[in-house]
């Protein structure tokens, strides 16, 4: 009797491990496919967001240019442009480091799309805007400080 019970427990445990591994795998590939990455968008720090996006720790790069105002009077609308001259740029991620959730947007580029995106973001307070770029299987980053006069997240 005891033996049977143990076996059942064992197999249940094994199944659990397999299920967990499968989930972890799915989450990773989910980023490449369509599923919205709720973990990454809930991240409270850029390191956490980068990890949740399934990207390795990025290296600083001067080939990434962030164009944003030095001082943004209205944090609700901060224009941001990211330009990457790294060959084979496939991803551009925009992070505002002191927002309640830091990840703003994750762009995947393919079929001739250049390493460039331009958009407008909300910033809660003065902080670094960080761009993370995946190019040629590696990950790079650059950051620029934007001073915010009136934050654009509360209200």
């Amino acid at each position, binding site marked *: 009797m005891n033996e049977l019970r143990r076996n059942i427990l064992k197999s249940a445990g094994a199944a659990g491990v397999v299920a967990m591994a499968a989930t972890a795998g799915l989450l990773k590939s989910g980023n490449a496919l*369509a599923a*919205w*990455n709720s973990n990454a*968008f809930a991240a409270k720090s850029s390191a956490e967001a980068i990890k949740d996006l399934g990207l390795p720790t990025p290296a600083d790069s001067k080939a990434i240019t962030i164009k944003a105002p030095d001082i943004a009077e209205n944090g*609700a*609308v*901060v*224009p941001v*442009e990211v330009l990457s001259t790294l060959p084979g740029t496939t991803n551009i991620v925009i992070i*505002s480091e002191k*927002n*309640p*959730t830091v*990840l*703003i*947007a*994750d*762009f*995947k*580029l*393919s*079929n*001739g*799309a*250049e390493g*460039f*995106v*331009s*958009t*407008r*973001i*909300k910033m809660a307070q003065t902080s670094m805007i960080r761009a993370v770029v995946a190019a040629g299987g590696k990950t790079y980053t650059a950051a620029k400080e934007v001073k915010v006069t009136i934050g*654009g*997240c*509360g*209200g």
Partner: protein
Amino acid sequence: MAEPMKMRASISGDVADIKVLMNHPMESGQRKDAKTGQIIPAHFIDEVHATLNGKPVLDAQWGGGVSKNPYLGFKVKGAKAGDKVEISWKDNKGESNKVDGVVS
């Protein structure tokens, strides 16, 4: 239903410069209603897709940190006048919209 989107795609050399304006409140779910003190529920575009002649060129995931009435600009190399551009979005409530146009 969502209001119309605006899109412009202009060619410069062999690079299409594509600019899109979307109409959306982009509520992050962090804001409180000034009168009631209640949190305004999140309502934001979470996915944007763009194709050039039917081929995907940009696939984005967004959070509530993109500004209200979002603007998106991007560039595609190897394009020419007459190429067909289609941009679509969907939001966290399942609403969606799209716009198409021609590179000129």
